[in-house]
Structures are given as C-alpha cells and as structure tokens.
C-alpha cells in the first residue's frame, strides 16, 4: 500500500470474531498517550479522555461501548496503535445482508 505510513492504523481485515459478534473499539490504556487525535473523528461521542491515576500520563482515552459503531476511524488516527477490537458480547450479530 502506498502513502505515508507513519503508523499502520486500522488493520486491513476485520477481526476473526467479526462474523460472530459485533466488533467494538477498545483502548489499550497502557499504550495510550492521551494525544486526543482520536476524539475529533468519532462522530458518535464514543471517545473521551479519563483520569487514570496509575497511568504514566495520568489519563487515557476510553471508549464508551454503548456508543461505538465500530467504524474504525479511531484506529486510523492513533499514532501508537493503542486500539484493539473486542467482541460486543451484549449484542446479537447484525450481519451485512441479513434480512429482518
């Protein structure tokens, strides 16, 4: 893939569990540098910075799972690859193409 690759951003393929449970973004707080890059791209108010007394920087980005639509843009903005996919175990799958 061409283009500037300062950091890889979103993995090119969805996580392996994506067909079973909806993927949610989650911040690996030990990696987060609280740089705020991810906050403006989230159109669903799913990201905030929270105080973390034990964290090296005292704060970290945090995902509000109930608001996350799994769009992937926060992954793209993270310069330290602190985002991972986790399955939303509280939700039933909504597969593309599913008729309801």
């Amino acid at each position, binding site marked *: 893939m061409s283009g500037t690759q300062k950091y890889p951003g979103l993995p*090119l393929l969805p996580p392996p569990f994506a067909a079973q449970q909806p993927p949610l973004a989650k911040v690996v707080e030990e990696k987060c540098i609280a740089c705020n890059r991810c906050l403006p791209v989230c159109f669903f108010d799913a990201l905030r910075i929270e105080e973390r007394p034990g964290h090296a920087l005292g704060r970290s980005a945090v995902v509000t799972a109930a608001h996350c639509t799994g769009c992937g843009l926060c992954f793209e903005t993270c310069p330290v690859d602190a985002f991972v996919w986790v399955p939303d175990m509280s939700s039933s799958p909504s597969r*593309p193409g599913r008729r309801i």
Partner: protein
Amino acid sequence: MLTTSFLGMELRSPVIVASGPASHDVNQISLAERHGAGAVVLKTACSDKYQHMRFWPRPRYKLLDWDKQIAGRSTQFSLYSYEQGYSGSLEDYWEFIRVCKRHAGIPIVGSIFADEAGDWAAMAAEVEMAGADAIELDISSPHRPGSLEFDTTFVAAMRAVVGRVHIPVLAKLAPGTNVLMQAEAAEQAGAHAVTLCNRLQGIDVDIESQRPILHGYYAGIGGPWAKYYTMRHIAEAYRTVHIPISGTGGAITGEDVVKYILVGASTVQVLSAILINGWETIARMNEEITGYLQRKGVDRLESIRGQAVASMTPPDNIVRWSGEPLDGTRNIWKEPGP
C-alpha cells in the same frame, strides 16, 4: 456575500453537508448550522425492501494514502468506505426530519433510496410531509443493493417522485461515462437539480492475505483527488442541462468550492472533509470563499458561476506547434552503451 439562491431557497452559504455520516443524527444538524453550513442533506433512508442496509459492517472506513495530518490540515487521503443507510426505520426517519425542521435554522434536504417507482414516490411524499425543504434521490450510491438500471427504474422513479411532491427534487448521479446522459434524463424527467457526483466503487487488496481489504467487496472510494473528474462532470453538465448543479466529491478547501462554482455548480456538498478535518472545515471554507470574493472585488458568489466554463477552449482550437523534429538526434538509433 455567500448567499446563494438554490431551488427557491436562500442559502447563507453554498457549502452543504452531504448525505452521510455527518448528517445521521439531530445533533450533527446543529453542529452543521453552528459551523456555517448553508443546508444539510440528511443521511439516506432505504425502503423496507432494503432494510438490511440499516445495518452497518464493522469496520466501515479505512483511510488509504492518508497524509496523517491532524487539526484540520489533511489534504491527502482516500476514504475507503462501506457506508450504509440510515440506521432507523422509515418512521424514525420521518421523525428525524421533523425534529431537524423544528430546531434547525437552515434548510433540510431528505434523501431516499428504493427501487420501484411506487416506493420512491411514497417515501418522497412522507419526506415532504415531515417538512423537508427538498429531497435528494440517491440513485447512485456505490453501496446500493440490487441491480437497478438507470434507464428504466430510476427514470421512472424520478418521474413518479416529481409527480408526487411539491418540494424540489435533486437526482444524485454517479460519476462515469454516462453522467451527462443521466443528467439530461434527470432534467427531462422533471428533476429540479442534479447532484454531481456520488462516490466511485473501488477495491484494495491486502497482499499478505491476498484478499480484498475489509469485507471482501468493492467499497465506496473518494477523496480530494475526486475533485478533478467531479469538476469535469459539473462543467459538462453546466454546458448541457438547464437545471442547477450541486457539486460534490473531493472539495476540502474554500478554493475547491470556488472552483466548483467557476465550472458551474450552484452549491457544493462536503462530507469527507468534515469527517477527516472536522466541522471547522465548513467555517474555514466560508472564510476562504469570502476572502477570495473580496480579493476579486466580487459582491455575490453567483456572479462568478460558470466563468471557467465560459472561457473553455474547444479542443480543435487549442494552439498546437510542431512536435519533436523527426530528423533530430533522438530519432537516430543508437546502440545502448555498456
């Protein structure tokens, strides 16, 4: 100075928020208004037949070739997108329009997708009843399901909608070789404006897994590079059709908006720029357009519309000079050296 007459509406700016993830909920409408948008085209609602489009793949977006500039400074990216439709029911959508109209001080344009003409017309009537100021028919989404043909289905749909509602009707067309023919067909079918153009379909491949990236199907692809063919389509349509043009695709600065208007657009719809560079993009565009008009001593933006088209040169009239001399040294074969 930026006031733009468009389909009977007086817009305070030619910059409109395009249908998509920046026009999916009511709070985004107030953000659009606060940042100076002239109007908002709401996220597209799909007919019940296509209600699977109300569910969204995860992830939905990959930024390719991104310059990774933040704080509104990005100028290069390709947005690779599996964007789908409005996520609620049609009843939710009519209520969405009603709430937007109750609170917004800028025009609200509904956007719909269906297949059979009857569904298009029925949905359009609901959009009108809910209070929308205009309606855009999204007949060209790169994500649209089915194998619907423009010549048959969509022309019939446009006629049905135009015959049913009293609000202005915009037809949003796909880029490509047929766009001019489709713009003419839209005008003949009674559409009041055309939106040029939707995103293209594209594909990227992960060479490690040897699979298409993300969900294994073509994605909608757009970015600042789209401005060049978009402007060409606007220019061609401006010369040919007699209805207003809402340009969209690739505009990320106020200068881009000015260019779109110089090739004939009345308004310019933006989305990717807001997604990547933030809502402040709209205010920045407005400032840049105003700065340009002041520098050029122009009172009204409308007075420059189509200026660049008016001074286009027919290809036969492009001045040509002799090419490479055929008896020159570069036309005498030389064996390559060691």
